[in-house]
Each structure stands twice: as structure tokens, then as C-alpha cells.
């Protein structure tokens, strides 16, 4: 084995001068970042600087690392994706106070996940690039171009927000801090989510409008209840590593491992047949329809079912339209069912269009409550109380569909029995099939 000697590079900066205004703190902050990366002897090809919009968003062009310059406030999301896909990368986000406002939820979530990225907020208390408008960190009373009579909003405490929500390292300071490079280095060494809220002077706008100076900065922080220093530090599993650890044992064939449904029966259909079951959500209507489809497939038929239900899932109606057919057929709505099973009043409420379209060739099975329904179809009233034992609500769909199959005989009942016995709740499903068959004997 031969040892590879890596010579640390002298600078991560390009030769280009920064584009920032005279006296702006952004340049010094980036110089401290450069010093931190030199100190850590990082490989620039393994570093990605992620930035977004505003003056801070110009930063990444002045480094020799890789870069992702994206949309306002979303830098944390890109950084999360970059780190999740390749945890070996050192990912540094540079954003402004504008980005923390528009992307506040992303910062909170990144902190909660403890994703291993380092966020540097260049916080100059206003929007510098677009004309000195107020931001989420503008102090109360602050004069900006959009708060000409003084800011009425309370400033966002970025550090507290991410600190109480799981961040691993949270620091507040300013571009003038002598140890800022060390703080950046410590943050980058931290495996989890690190954020540094670094205040600086916007000489173009905020300084001029508010007589805000270096001398008053630290005092202002304290007077606004935002202490400087290392504010939060926490040891917890970093997300991208934690994800891999948690899923290391998840193996096996993904969904592609299809299992063909065994075919052991023949059917009697020479054209598509449609069955509609109209019941209530939570009544396993869709499961019943699925079992009838699977019985059909076990008999060599094709099948397709289209379900309709409200967004509440467990309340309201549940209607399942099922086609079984001797050949493959396109997906279409059932307008005139061969068989309609009404198993609850919720279902009856949705059955009108079907009942109106059905003719004497067609069959309606209904619970006694709706025996007076109006239709041209033949109607069979099935009373669940006549069954040998009480029929649970969750079996009604399968009971009535089994009864319908026993009457119309498109495929052998044994195929349905096989389907019912093959999956979950086999015992209850098999009982429902027998109950349904018995109801029409």
C-alpha cells in the first residue's frame, strides 16, 4: 500500500475580488469561511457551497469548491438533497436574512432532522440587493424602505428557532468576531445541523437609515434579547447517516417481484360483466370488490375496479365499480351495471344514476331498507337478518357480491372461495362468501 500525500491548498478563494459594497460585512465573513476550510484541510472537490438569492447569493462564485446557486430561501432544501444522496460531501449553505424568512420552514425542518449541513446566515437586517426593504430580522423600529416610519414586526430569533428544534450547533456573532473562522470550523466538524447567525453591516441601506454601527451591534443584540456566542450544542445522530443505518437491513426484492395469480378455473363469460357495490366507507367495500376480481382472475378473466369514496376514508359512501371480462378492456366507467348491490343507505344515496340506467336484463340486490327503490331492473331484497349468524358491517359487501355471483354464475364460486381464503382476513372472508351463497339458496 502506498501512502497518498495530500497537500492542503493555500486558499479556497478564486482570484476575483468580491462584488460587495465598501464596508459590507459579507466579504470578511467569506474570508473567515475560507480560513476555516484551509484550517480543516478540506478537499475543495468534496465541498459544495449552496447559496440562494440576494447579495449573499453572489458568494459561491468566489470559491473554487463546487457550488449550487438556487432560488430564494430554498438553499437548505438543495443542501439536504445533496447531503442525502452523498453523505461524504461537506455541504455549506450561505444565505441571507431574506432567505431565512422565505425559507424558515426549511431551516426548522433541517434542524429537526439534524441533517449534516452548515448554514451561515449573513444577517444584515434588511434586503440589500433589492433596495433596503425590511426582512424577518429587521429590529422593531428599524427604518427601511418598506418600513419608512419604523418596523412594527418583532425580529425573528433565528438561533432560538433552530436551537429549540434540534440543531446540533448554533452560534450567534458578527463579521467582526476575531474567532469567527474557528467557529465556522467547529460548525463544519459537527456531524449534524449547524447554523451560524452572523450579523454584519449593510452600508448601502441599514447603516445609513438607522445610524447602525459596529460599536453598537453587540449591545443591540443584547438589548433585543439575542445573546451572542455558542447558544446550543447537542449530540444526536446525523440524518443521512441515520437513514442509512436505519435502512441497512431493508433488503429483498422491490415491488418488481410480481407474483402471478394462479389460474385454476374456467369462466362462462362471453362479454364484459359489470358489478357495482354501493355501501359505506369503512365497510371494506373495495376489499370485497377486489376479492371478486381476484376470483375472476383465478378463472382466467380480466378485471378492473374503479372506486369512489370521499376524502374522509372512514365515513360517507364507498362505491366500487368492477368489470370482469373474458378479454383485456380499456378503463371505462360503469354506466349500466349488470348487477348492483346496495348494502347501506350511504350507498343507496349514490345509486340513483345506476338504478335509472338499468333495465329488466339487470339485477339489483338490496338491503330491506331500500326495497321500494325505483328501477326497471329485477330487484332481489336480501335480508341480512335471515342469515344464520349476524353479518358484520365489514362483511356486507362480500356477502352481497357472493350472492350476486351465486345467482349470475360468471365464474365458479370455488374460485371466489380460493381468493377469499388466500389473503388477509381469510376466515371472515370465507364465512362471508358462504353467508352470501346461503342467502340466495
Amino acid at each position: 500500500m502506498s501512502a497518498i500525500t495530500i497537500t492542503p491548498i493555500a486558499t479556497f478563494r478564486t482570484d476575483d475580488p468580491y462584488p460587495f459594497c465598501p464596508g459590507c460585512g459579507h466579504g470578511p465573513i467569506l474570508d473567515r469561511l475560507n480560513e476555516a476550510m484551509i484550517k480543516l484541510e478540506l478537499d475543495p472537490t468534496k465541498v459544495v457551497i449552496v447559496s440562494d438569492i440576494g447579495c449573499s447569493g453572489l458568494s459561491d462564485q468566489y470559491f473554487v469548491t463546487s457550488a449550487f446557486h438556487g432560488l430564494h430561501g430554498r438553499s437548505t432544501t438543495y443542501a439536504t438533497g445533496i447531503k442525502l444522496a452523498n453523505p461524504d460531501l461537506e455541504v455549506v449553505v450561505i444565505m441571507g436574512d431574506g432567505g431565512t424568512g422565505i425559507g424558515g420552514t426549511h431551516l426548522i425542518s433541517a434542524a429537526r432532522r439534524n441533517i449534516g449541513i452548515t448554514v451561515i446566515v449573513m444577517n444584515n437586517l434588511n434586503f440589500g440587493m433589492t433596495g433596503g426593504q425590511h426582512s424577518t430580522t429587521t429590529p422593531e423600529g428599524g427604518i427601511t424602505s418598506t418600513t419608512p416610519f419604523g418596523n412594527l414586526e418583532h425580529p425573528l430569533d433565528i438561533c432560538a428557532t433552530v436551537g429549540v428544534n434540534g440543531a446540533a450547533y448554533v452560534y450567534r456573532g458578527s463579521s467582526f468576531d476575531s474567532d469567527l473562522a474557528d467557529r465556522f470550523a467547529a460548525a463544519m466538524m459537527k456531524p449534524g445541523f449547524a447554523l451560524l447567525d452572523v450579523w454584519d453591516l449593510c452600508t448601502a441601506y441599514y447603516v445609513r437609515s438607522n445610524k447602525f454601527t459596529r460599536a453598537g451591534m453587540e449591545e443591540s443584540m443584547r438589548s433585543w434579547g439575542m445573546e451572542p456566542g455558542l447558544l446550543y450544542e447537542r449530540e444526536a445522530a446525523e440524518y443521512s447517516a441515520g437513514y442509512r443505518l436505519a435502512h441497512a437491513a431493508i433488503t429483498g426484492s422491490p415491488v418488481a417481484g410480481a407474483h402471478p395469480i394462479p389460474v385454476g378455473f374456467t369462466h362462462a363469460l362471453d362479454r364484459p360483466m359489470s358489478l357495482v357495490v354501493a355501501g359505506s366507507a369503512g365497510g371494506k367495500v373495495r376489499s370485497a370488490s377486489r376479492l371478486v376480481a381476484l376470483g375472476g382472475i383465478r378463472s382466467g378473466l380480466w378485471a378492473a375496479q374503479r372506486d369512489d369514496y370521499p376524502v374522509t376514508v372512514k365515513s360517507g359512501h364507498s362505491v366500487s365499480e368492477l368489470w370482469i371480462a373474458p378479454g383485456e378492456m380499456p378503463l371505462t366507467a360503469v354506466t349500466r351495471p349488470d348487477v348492483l348491490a346496495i348494502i347501506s343507505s350511504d350507498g343507496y344515496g349514490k345509486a340513483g344514476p345506476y338504478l335509472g340506467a338499468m333495465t329488466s336484463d339487470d339485477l339489483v340486490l338490496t338491503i330491506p331498507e331500500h326495497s321500494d327503490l325505483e328501477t326497471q331492473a329485477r330487484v332481489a331484497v336480501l335480508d341480512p337478518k335471515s342469515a344464520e349468524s349476524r353479518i358484520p358491517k365489514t362483511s356486507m359487501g362480500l356477502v352481497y357480491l357472493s350472492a350476486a355471483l351465486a345467482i349470475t354464475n360468471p365464474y365458479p364460486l370455488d374460485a371466489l372461495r380460493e381468493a377469499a381464503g388466500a389473503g388477509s382476513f381469510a376466515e371472515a372472508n370465507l364465512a362471508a362468501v358462504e353467508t352470501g351463497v346461503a342467502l340466495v339458496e
Partner: protein
Amino acid sequence: MEVLPTGRAVPSLVGMITNTEVPRREYVDGTTAIVRGAIDAGCTFFAGYPITPASGILMSMMREIPKVGGVAIQGEDEIASIGMCLGAAMSGAKAMTATSGPGISLYSESIGLAIMGEVPLVIIDVQRLGPATGGATTVAQGDVQFVRWGTGGGYPVIVLAPSSVPESYSLTVKAFELAERFRCPVFLLTDKELAMTLSAVDVDESAIARDTARQEKHEGLPYSWEPADAVEPMRRYGEGDAFRFTGSTHDEGAYITKNAAKVGALNEHLIAKIEAHRDEIEMVDADLVAGADTIVVSYGVTAGAARAAVTRLRSEGIGVSSLVVQSLWPIPETALNEAFDGVDRIVVPELNMGLYSREIERIAAGRAVIGVNRIDGGLITIDEIVEAVR
């Protein structure tokens, strides 16, 4: 035993089984087909946010992608989810996200970023009835223009539309291929019914041993637009020398520029790389009858009733052609022009008030275009299309 009635108005059969081979079928929905297609196409990153009727894809990807060594995550919102996909794609992952109309609204700015930064990304839009929250469990085809024009600038994207469960699989695979080939967002425009309807399908064993490795390079500039339709292989963070990415107008090194010549070349490239290669993208399922004066042009879930209506009309002796559009954008103009030759009536059923038929009208050049439209959450029926053709 009762005998089933005959002679009813029912959907046509695509093909009756005549052989005695035991069929190998399973019963799956479009959601499962999309997830399989993604995994088989080499998808290694998924981020999404719950929304009916697309949540099934999110839940399935959370379970399945770890099995192939990938990462799936539920973002804090749709904006974060697509942002994570873009970052992951630049780290070398093949990325996918899935949502419905309200989520596409939130994706809007990032769709633009994917176009500008030339990021391969597959976006599944499981359409539901809009506008706004609309009907979460209700079908519609109202996003057909929205996905095409859903971000600022007017630059092209690719949009595919399956019309069945098997196509939900094959067009998802195709979406990944096109996203890689053209380095752009590719939409799969499906809907509540196609995603959630269970269908018997023949077991597809064609997906084995697909080469899914990304064609990438590890050195040099991330972009090139000389010639204008050139598509440079992707770079990947952490491999080779450092490189840049930006959503601003930029040069081939992704350095921000306002140089008019460079800006013009970049923007023309974003259009030319797709427009000059429409033949690689345009897809239709054409079922034409010589001499027919009427054609039904459909797409997505509505193609089911359209195909059935055409079969029924033919069984009644009425010659009518059918064309199902599979690549909605770019519009398959060549195939449409060929299909319109000798036709004087074009019937366009869609679950909106004519959003795609306006495109058909442009190509139809004066021929009668008859819409069959529905926006109440129901599917267009076979009868409605038959009536429009007659």
C-alpha cells in the same frame, strides 16, 4: 344458472383470449406500476409530500427505495421535496417526485430551476379536480396546459400521459430515459382513476437487466450549447474537479453572466435541445382506418372510453380512426398531421373544457374539432363519445 343478457352497450375487448395457455396475471394499480417503473429505471432518490391521490406513490417509495440502496424522504412541504430532488440529482441520483395539481403549484419555481440548471427530474402529477383544493378523490384532466406552462419563461418541458396500468409502467421508464437524455424535467401526467384503479395485467417480465447507469462525466464544464441542441453529460458533486450550478443566466461553467451573446445561446439551447429532437420524444398510439372521415383524439384516462367507443362504432359499420396521444408535450405534430390527412372531423374527449383541443385546433387547420367535455368528476362515457362521432 341465469344467463347473462347479451347485446348490451359494454366496453370493447382489446383482445379475446383464444389460446389455451394459462395466463400469468396480477391485479395492480397505476401507483404500483409507476413505482415499479421508477425502480426499474434506476430511480435512487424520491422526495414528496402527502397529497391525495398521489400519496400512494410516496408511501410505496418510502418502503421500496431502501431495497435498492436509495433514499426516500417526506419533505416538510412540496417546495422542499422538489428542492431535495434537485440537490440529490446533482449528487448523482436519479430523482423523482409525485404530487397533484395543488402541489404542482408549489413546484412551479423549482420546475424553472430544473429547466435552467438542466436537471434530470421525473415529476408525477396525479391529477385531481381543481381549482384549488377542488376534489381530492375526484378525477380530472385539468393540468394538461398547467404542467407545460407552469413556470416562468415559457421554456419547454416534456409531458407523457399513460392511459392504462401497463402504460403507467412503460411511460415512467420512458420518462426517466427522456429526463436523462435531455437533462430536463419530465412530467408523467396521470390522474386519480389511473393511479388508483386496480386492473388485471399480464405479468411483465421485460424489465429485467435494464442498464440504468447515468451517462456522466467527471471532469470539465457542466454545460455546452455548441451546437445549440447539444446535451452535455451530467456532472456529479464529489467526482472529479469542482463544478458549479446556478439558476441564473450563465455561461458553460455556470458562472452568472449578462453577456447578451452567451445569454441568448443558453436560452436558445434550452429550447433547441428538445425542439430539434421531437422525433425522439413524440409518441402516439394510432389506430387509423383508411378513408375514415372522423378521428377521435384522446389522452390519459379518457382514452379508455375513446378506444371502446371506436371499437363499438366500427362494429356498427362506422369507419372511425383513433389516436391516443402519449407525449402531450411536445405535441406529436407529425403523427397528428398524418392522422388528419383525409379527415374532416376530429372528436376530442377530455376531462376539462377543451384545454388540449385548442392545440388540436391549431394543427387541424380548419377541420371541425368537436369537444366532449366533463368537469363534474365523472368519467366521459362510451355513449358520449359515440354520440359525438355520429
